[in-house]
């Protein structure tokens, strides 16, 4: 029972590397899409005096 079964090892490590690579690619893509969305909506909105729903400590709209 001392066979190396190296092919199994390779598949296991290879799959893991692939999974992590895919996750990283998706992370970067999501970030890029989020930034694009921010830019797109900002350019569409002429009035950007919105407040964050979550935090009252954002700067208030300028008069």
């Amino acid at each position, binding site marked *: 029972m001392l066979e190396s079964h190296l092919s199994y*090892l390779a598949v296991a490590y290879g799959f893991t590397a692939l999974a992590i690579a895919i996750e990283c690619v998706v992370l970067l893509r*999501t970030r890029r899409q989020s930034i694009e*969305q*921010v*830019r797109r909506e900002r350019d569409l909105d002429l009035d950007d005096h919105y407040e964050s729903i979550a935090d009252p*400590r954002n700067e208030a709209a300028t008069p």
Partner: protein
Amino acid sequence: MNPFRFAAPPVFYPLAGRLLPWFTAAAVLLAVAGLYVGFGIAPTDFQQGEVYRIIFIHVPSAWMAMFIYLVMAGYAVLTLVWRSKLSAMMCRALAPTGAIMAVIALLTGAIWGKPTWGAWWVWDARLTSTLILLFLYLGYMALVAAIDDTTRADRAGALLLLVGVVNVPIIYFSVRWWNTLHQGASVSLTASPKMASTMLTGMLLMSLAAWMYAIAAALHRVRSIILQRERHTRWVRQLFA
């Protein structure tokens, strides 16, 4: 200094950005160290040969799948009790990474099982519990994705996580009981009791690497979530002039 200051998205976003490179670097360094110990120093196993080295991925990923779920449950408590928006975003940020860890654990477990026990899947307690954990992750992700109202989605997901986390020990206990009843001597894919200390060191280093990686991935993902949710605010719009 008020620690709750960091719970505000405008403060947390840049903080996460500054922490991100450090956790990424830590993950890479620990992984390199772990693989070096795992392949360069740890000896060949007496019974299993080289293929046992799968544990340097299988065990860390299984632990992380479990640990991430617990962390998510912690954030779920904060979401429900303190109505913290950032906590809800952290739950959503952690979920995909946790699910991927569970998938990796299951697949490496199957790949390990074939040469070792002769079958791709042996329904052992640990693997079966991990499979159910994966479904708990997928259920959470499906629920929050199906609800349009953000507040309802956050709170429903949080309640589901709490119900799930209470059930996880019960599920694990029941599956272990079922397993020992039906198989007599438990056929377990956990490493043999005679583990060389170098093997343990390798596993520990890889576990820490997985932990750092999970934190880095969650920080990156939560930044994107913050951008999406807060895209109408002044502070976000001024970020990308």
